[in-house]
């Protein structure tokens, strides 16, 4: 009789690159139950989700547009996670960035576009940092658990946004709870003709590459990795652990803030309460799927954007709910975590 044995020990080398693939396959196997339930064929759904968007130019551009915010939040989360600081607050930091960017944008009348957009990016980065500051300080001074504080501040931020939009910033023209539109010269240029891919995509890629370089090639990055791997030894080696973690937390917040800038400056041109459908949380999935490495984060951001875009096609063609993509993403996260765990074991067939 054959049975399955699981034993400890690293997975064989050939298996490691296959891990994301396995995660994806398992996820789709699981999700196909739901698709059947929604009355569609899983094969058609997989085609719509993963293949169809790649066949059309406009859909391919949409993927880049959709990848923009989650690439930024993914990088933000990864920077913090690498040194063992669990920043769950990218969502709030994103909105902080969006608020400042909208404010700068609205008041940017008459500035040259380069200056206006530059100021928005700087303001958004600073705002994200600022919103990340309190939990980071609490962590480094009093060892208050950052998971709790950053998460709670997300809700606080939503209240702030809603207070702003229903109070001083309510659009004077329409009366909707949305901010005034930013000046024309502050709106991000589109970088691919006849698409909505905007400057923010380039910003995101540049940030990801910069972080890649930072983690691999700079003293700061090496120290962050050292702290994440063995905090006590890092301390012994003279690395100022608290200061470095504080810095990483702030950088993480700043990058998340940039995601908010991109959404205001490149997509909506004003601030609204539904600016982000949870990009901050998706960032956690992106960072985890990408194993906290920058190439991985870039790939997984693109992949999740593909699923998001595919869900729209699937909805149109097969009438399955668009929420399918949320379910897939959540399932993918769980499966990936499980597979990463299994990565530390070997599976053997034996008697």
């Amino acid at each position: 009789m054959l049975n399955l044995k699981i034993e400890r020990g690293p997975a064989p080398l050939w298996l490691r690159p296959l891990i994301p693939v396995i995660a994806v396959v398992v996820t789709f196997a699981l999700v196909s139950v739901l698709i059947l339930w929604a009355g569609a064929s899983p094969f058609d759904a997989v085609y719509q989700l993963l293949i169809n968007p790649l066949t059309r130019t406009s859909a391919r551009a949409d993927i880049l547009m959709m990848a923009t915010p989650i690439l930024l939040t993914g990088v933000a989360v990864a920077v913090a996670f690498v040194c063992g600081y669990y920043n769950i607050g990218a969502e709030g930091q994103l909105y902080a960035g969006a608020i400042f960017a909208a404010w700068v944008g609205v008041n940017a009348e008459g500035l040259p576009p380069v200056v206006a957009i530059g100021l928005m990016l700087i303001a958004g980065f600073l705002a994200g940092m600022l919103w990340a500051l309190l939990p980071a300080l609490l962590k480094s001074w009093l060892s208050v658990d950052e998971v709790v504080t950053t998460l709670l501040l997300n809700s606080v931020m939503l209240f702030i946004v809603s207070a702003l939009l229903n109070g001083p910033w309510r659009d004077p023209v329409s009366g909707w709870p949305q901010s005034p539109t930013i000046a024309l010269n502050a709106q991000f240029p589109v970088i691919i003709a006849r698409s909505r891919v905007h400057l923010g995509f380039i910003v995101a890629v540049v940030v990801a590459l910069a972080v890649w370089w930072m983690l691999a090639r700079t003293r700061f990055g090496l120290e962050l990795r050292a702290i994440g791997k063995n905090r006590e030894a890092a301390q012994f080696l003279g690395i100022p652990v608290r200061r470095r973690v504080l810095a990483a937390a702030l950088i993480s917040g700043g990058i998340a803030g940039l995601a908010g800038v991109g959404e205001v400056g490149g997509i909506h041109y004003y601030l609204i309460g539904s600016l982000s459908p949870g990009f901050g949380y998706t960032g956690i999935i992106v960072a985890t799927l990408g194993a906290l490495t920058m190439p991985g984060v870039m790939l997984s951001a693109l992949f999740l954007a593909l699923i998001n875009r595919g869900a729209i096609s699937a909805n149109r063609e097969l009438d399955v709910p668009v929420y399918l993509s949320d379910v897939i993403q959540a399932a993918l996260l769980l499966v990936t975590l499980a597979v990463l765990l299994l990565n530390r074991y070997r599976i053997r067939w034996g008697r």
Partner: protein
Amino acid sequence: MPPIIEMRGITKRFGALTANDGIDFSIEPGEIHALLGENGAGKSTLMKILYGLYQPDAGEIRINGQPVRLTSPAEAIVSGIGFVSQHFALVPKFTVAENVVLGHEGSRTLHPTAMSTTVMETAASLRLLIDVNAIVGRLSVGEQQRVEILKALYRDCKVLIMDEPTAVLAPGDIAALFDILRVLQGRGMSVIIITHKLDEVFAISQRVTVLRLGKVVGEVRTQDSTPAALAQMMVGRQTVTVARNTDHRRQDAVKLDVRDLRLTDKRGGLRLRGLSLEVRGGEIVGVAGVAGNGQSELVSVLTGMAAPDSGSVTVGGAPLPFRDPKAVSRLKVARIPEDRLKGVIGDLSVQDNLMLESVEDFTRMGHLDRARIRANAEALIRAFQIKAAPTDLARTLSGGNIQKIILARSLGHAPEVVIAAQPTRGLDIGATEYVHQKLLEQKERGAAILLISEDLEEILLLSDRILVIYEGRIAGTFAAQDAQIDQIGALMTGAHPHA
């Protein structure tokens, strides 16, 4: 009777490296079997295979003549094999009893009192002195080791593997451990003990297997062999001569001055009670003592990891800042911590570990200078004979080679003061010898060396002056020439020799 354990033709490769190469190894019931070999010879690997932690690439294992496949520790435990590893696997926040029972609870519900009673009984039956309700994280290394032994026995093991158990023990604890092992042997159990100390091999074992470069080079009855013969088998050549400190006359200025340190631990216990000492340039001062008398705390303060309640430390006249490891290493204090895992980051490469302490020297405007990092690593690897490539992850190295990373990093850069805590713990004869030479070289250079060791022999061999630490202060000082072992021993246990 067939051997209780028989390993045949065991081969294990890690990438290009063959850690075990066709090893035959067997254990008789009721014997204590020593496993000997240089650092990286493959001893731990072989034992991890026997415990189901690694799968061999070739070879078979028989238990009581029956072929078995051990694919997990759980299976090894069921087969009656227990393993006390070089690095303990205990939950620091649990009590001794909880740690012992963990994973072997027996029933779904736990009765705390019943649990501690049964564990206490197991301990008592073996004359293991231990408080079963103590929190493990607060125990000394020696006590934690007893918890590990207890854990194995509680699971009813027939063969107990001990990977370098004596490396972490004070002499008195070693004797106690050997007593425990003899009790186990009296009950028909077998013990496999890995050690680098030949006198221990002769004190406790009946048979010895010697490994070199992954192969068995000899298997002898202990009584038929001699230390010299074993040493030669191990290194494959005539053994090195023993380096010894003979020049005690040198009188340089005081380089390390420790004044009246007092330190209370988190539980409010007084760990250092007005400890003072000084070390001159060109001098090796040995601190002898039973573990737990303040050595760890002293080392923590001197290495920049802890701050005392009061007292001062100066290095070459400059005050040593507390709790600032960077500042300490900038004062050219070389630090060899007693726990390797606190000095090396296992998930980073060897080359990164070799430069992190002085990372600013390898950085140009925040940017890491790869070429210099690699060159530094290659030079240190060569100078200190570390068996590794610069890009290997540190945690894949053998215990002794991990220790060499620390030595290379700290002694490689012309220190003024050396704080050496258990510097040869876990090192093989050749490497120990090598470390002793390096420390003597530092003395020649004029560095001030504070040697904290639980190995009294090492202290006698190297020191110009010997201090005995007892209950957080220096209880006595001896010049090397007129050090009396029995007097030192008496002071270590708190007796007053002059009273």
